[in-house]
């Protein structure tokens, strides 16, 4: 599903050069739930952005779902994100002026679906995350956990193969964090999605199939997560 070969990403901050990623190679299979972990500044968010088509590496090959991202134009990358990737962010990042249902429907505006079809799909996605009864609420009327579930509904509504989530539990309490991680695991198990999250929450480890550690832009090690060992939820 995901193939990164010798990917490097360099930033300039003032006169300093920051090596966010240094020759990182990574392979993730289809229908896996993977966590990228590491301290702040380790390059885990940059890695997530690169494989989701949000950021471009300075060098190295990126292939996701059989598509080579290196040669794509900005618009092609946008189309790739629209069809292939679903996003979940730490601060939920719902559009405040739209209702829960409309937020979920938003990515479908980019498709050729009719209004009725869009509405139906959005309702289905909201049902998957268990929020059908909150469809007409604005984001500020929802709790943090509910907002993140709306965001997850938004990420799956286009039937994207890859779901990426940057610190999805970072702004949530323990109970809600567990619920969100469980939901993400459901996506991989029942809906066949590939899920990649960035987290420094140790709780995440027991839900995922694989934990990838980074530090200072370098891939340190890969080891099986709790789900692979059967520690929590159903075995992968």
């Amino acid at each position, binding site marked *: 599903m995901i193939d990164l070969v010798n990917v490097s990403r360099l930033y300039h901050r003032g006169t300093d050069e920051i090596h966010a990623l240094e020759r990182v190679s990574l392979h993730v299979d289809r229908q896996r739930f993977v966590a990228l972990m590491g301290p702040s500044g380790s390059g885990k*968010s940059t890695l997530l952005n690169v494989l989701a088509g949000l950021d471009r590496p300075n060098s190295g090959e990126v292939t996701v779902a059989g598509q080579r991202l290196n040669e794509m134009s900005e*618009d092609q990358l*946008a189309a790739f994100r629209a069809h292939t990737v679903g*996003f979940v962010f730490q601060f939920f990042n719902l559009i405040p002026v739209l209702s829960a249902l409309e937020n979920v429907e938003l990515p479908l505006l*980019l498709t050729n679906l009719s209004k009725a079809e869009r509405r139906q799909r959005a309702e289905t996605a909201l049902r998957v995350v268990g929020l059908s009864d909150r469809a007409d609420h604005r984001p500020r009327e929802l709790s943090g956990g509910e907002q993140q579930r709306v965001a997850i509904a*938004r*990420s799956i509504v*286009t039937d994207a193969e890859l779901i990426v989530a940057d610190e999805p539990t970072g702004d949530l309490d323990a109970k809600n964090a567990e619920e969100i991680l469980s939901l993400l695991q459901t996506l991989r198990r029942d809906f066949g999605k590939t899920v990649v999250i960035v987290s420094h929450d140790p709780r995440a480890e027991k839900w995922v199939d694989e934990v990838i550690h980074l530090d200072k832009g370098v891939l340190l090690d890969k080891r099986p997560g709790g789900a692979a060992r059967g520690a929590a939820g159903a075995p992968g």
Partner: protein
Amino acid sequence: MKYLPLVWRNLGRNPLRSLLTAAAIALAIALVCILRTMPAGLDAVLASAAANTRISTHNEAGIVYSMPYAYLAKVRAVPGVVSAISWNWFGGAIDVSKGVEFPNFAVDPDGFAEVYADWGLDPKAFEDFRKYRDAALVGHTTLEKHRWKVGDVITLQSTVFPVTLSFRIVGSVPTATPSFYFQREYLAQALAASGAQFDSTGMIWSRIDDPERVAPVMRQIDEMFHNSEAITSTETEKSFVGNFFSGLKQLVTIIQIVAAMVTLCIVFIAANTASMSIRERVGEIAILKAIGFRRQTIFSTLLAEAGLLALVAGIAGAATAGFLLKGLQLYASSAGPQLGPLTAFAISSAILVEAIFVSFFIGILSGWVPALGASRRSVAQTLREVF
């Protein structure tokens, strides 16, 4: 148009700001409409004077210099002149302390219908004008201003001659400028009664049979009087009216400069709001891009937002202008004729529609730079900086 609800919702995001911006633009647009109406009033008068076979003969020294009344018969005899009439300034006032509120002239009723055939007046009005000694034909703007109607009798005291005359209104004249015409003979009789002689005229207006002959006829008239006691100058109606209002041109320039300043104001108000509302939303825009919205879509929805706000404001402004112009017309009608057509404040739908377009265009223009900036911003960088 599936993005329209999104655009609409975004305008409602900060209702106070949208309202203040729209109100500011609307007032500026209203102002521009009113300012542009002033020179447009002048243009309308010049355009309505386009009858190209009507010519004016007057003393070369100036309108206040007179010509012998006998000149009229000589002009009528010139080949090519279909008919001709004389005009004498009466300077009549309803109330002398208020001054002359509209120009009024003693004219010859014979030939009047031919000289002003282009007015398309009811033949009966011309017929009555000839028939009744005290008949008056009155400009429709003058009628409306004083709430007179055909059949009313009104009295004017002359500020030029020592007479006061009563007139019966027999017809409404469709000219853009205020006007009032009555029979020369009526004035002549009143003057004869007080022992004064009346044998001069200020202007002679003639209708020429063929546009091609206008120039030679004008030359012939002026040559005819070249060695007489009053040298004449003959010109087309358009040239005469243009010269009459030439003094207002510089005032018009100042009005136009002010209108340009106010338009520039709109640009700043609209641009400021567009940049504010886009700047505080960079995070959200990055999210939209992350979930796959293309640059162009982002750019056009942001532009649509700025354009829609300005469009709504423009319509409100044009409506406000229409409303205010009505009031100004009433007020300015008591002001006297010194500023001429500049204070006619006639509502022109062309100006209002144009203003709405200008407003929309400015909205789009002012949204361009911030929208382009926002749509070009790198998502990864924004996410790093904002979240």
